[in-house]
C-alpha cells in the first residue's frame, strides 16, 4: 500500500475530518471534492480516516436494566424528600426573621413619621421659649407704651444681663 507522503498535515486532516463530519461549508466541500478527484494520496488518507472512524460504530451500546432506573428514581425521591424537609425546617426560622423584620420596619416607620411630623407641625413650646424674655419683662414693656422708646432702651443696653453690662 502506498504511503501518502505529504498528506497528514494538521490542516489536511482537519479539512478531511470536517468533510467527513459534514461540517464544511459549500466552498470547502467543493475544494475537497476537487482535490479528491485528482490526488490519490489525498483520497487514500480520506479512506483511512473514514475506515478507522467507522470501526467505532461497532462498539457496544449500553442498555441499562430496570434496577438502574429504579435506584436512580429512589435516589431522586430521597433528594426530593430531603429538600422538602429542609424547606419545612426553614419555615420557623423564616417566620422569626419575618417578625424581626416587621418590628424593625415598625420602629423605622415611627421614627420617619416623627421627623416628618416635626417638620410639618412645629412645637408650640418653641415659640413660648423664644418669647420668654418678653414674657419675663412684660410689666416693664407694658408701662413703656411706645415701641420706639423700647428700641432706644435696647440700644442703650439697659435690658442686658448684669455681666454684659459690666463686661462690654
Amino acid at each position, binding site marked *: *500500500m502506498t504511503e501518502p507522503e505529504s498528506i*497528514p498535515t*494538521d490542516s489536511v*486532516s*482537519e479539512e*478531511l*475530518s*470536517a468533510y*467527513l*463530519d459534514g*461540517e464544511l461549508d459549500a466552498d470547502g466541500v467543493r475544494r475537497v471534492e476537487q482535490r479528491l478527484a485528482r490526488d490519490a494520496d489525498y483520497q487514500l488518507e480520506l479512506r*483511512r*480516516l473514514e*475506515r*478507522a*472512524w*467507522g*470501526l*467505532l*460504530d*461497532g*462498539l*457496544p*451500546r*449500553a*442498555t*441499562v436494566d430496570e434496577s*438502574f*432506573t429504579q*435506584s*436512580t*428514581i429512589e*435516589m*431522586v425521591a430521597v*433528594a*426530593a424528600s430531603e429538600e422538602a424537609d429542609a424547606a419545612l425546617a426553614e419555615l420557623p426560622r423564616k417566620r422569626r426573621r419575618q417578625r424581626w423584620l416587621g418590628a424593625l420596619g415598625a420602629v423605622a416607620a415611627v421614627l420617619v413619621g416623627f421627623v416628618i411630623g416635626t417638620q410639618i407641625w412645629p412645637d408650640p413650646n418653641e415659640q413660648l421659649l423664644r418669647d420668654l424674655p418678653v414674657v419675663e419683662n412684660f410689666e416693664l414693656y407694658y408701662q413703656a407704651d411706645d415701641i420706639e422708646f423700647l428700641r432706644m432702651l435696647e440700644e442703650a443696653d439697659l435690658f442686658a444681663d448684669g455681666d454684659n453690662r459690666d463686661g462690654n
Partner: protein
Amino acid sequence: MAISESSAQRYRLQDPDVRLMLEVRDDNAAAFDELMMRYQSRLVTVLEHLTGRRDQAEDLAQEVFMRVYRARKRYVVGAKFSTWLYTIANHVASNALRSRSRRPEVNLVPRPNDSTGVGALDRMALAASGAMPARQLDKAELREVVREALSGLNERQRMAVLLNKFEGMCYADIAESMEMSPQAVKSLLSRARVNLKEILSPYLEDGTRPP
C-alpha cells in the same frame, strides 16, 4: 449559557426534551422519569466508553441525573437539552477521572463480555479477512482493539469522539458541552481521527496489535 429570548423560544419549540425539562422545573415527577428513560442508556454508553468501566459509568450517570434534578429550579433554556445534559456529564466524568488518576488502579479497557454492537465490526472483520486470507480476524479481538484504540486517546479527545459518534452532535454543540470553541473541537476531532487511524491501521493492514 446566556442566549436571546428568540433563541430560547426556538429551543422550546424544536426540542421536546427542553419542554420536558421545563416541566421538571415545575416539579413534574413524570417529566423527570421520561427524561431519564430517554437518556439513561445513552448516557451510560458515553460514560462507559469514557471511563472504561460499566459500574463507574452507572454511578456517574446517576450522579448526572441527581445534578439535573437538583439544578431544576435554576434551569433556563440556553441550548438543546442534550447539550446541557452532556455539559453536566462532562464535568462529572472529568472530576471522576481526575480523582481516579490520583488512585492508580486504572484500566480504561472495559470488560469484553458485555458487548452488543456488531454491525460495523463484523463488516470490517469480513473485509479485513478477505484482504488477509491467512488470518481470520476475530470479531471479539477487533472489538477489543478498537476499544484499546479509543482508550488510547486523551480524555478530551475521547469525549469529543463519543459525543460526535454516539450522540451525533455537531461541532457547535460539542463545543458548548465541553466549554470550548467550535474551532478547538474541529482540531480535537481531527487529532482524534488521526490517532485512531494510526493506532488501527497496522492492525487492519497486517494484524499487528497496537502496543
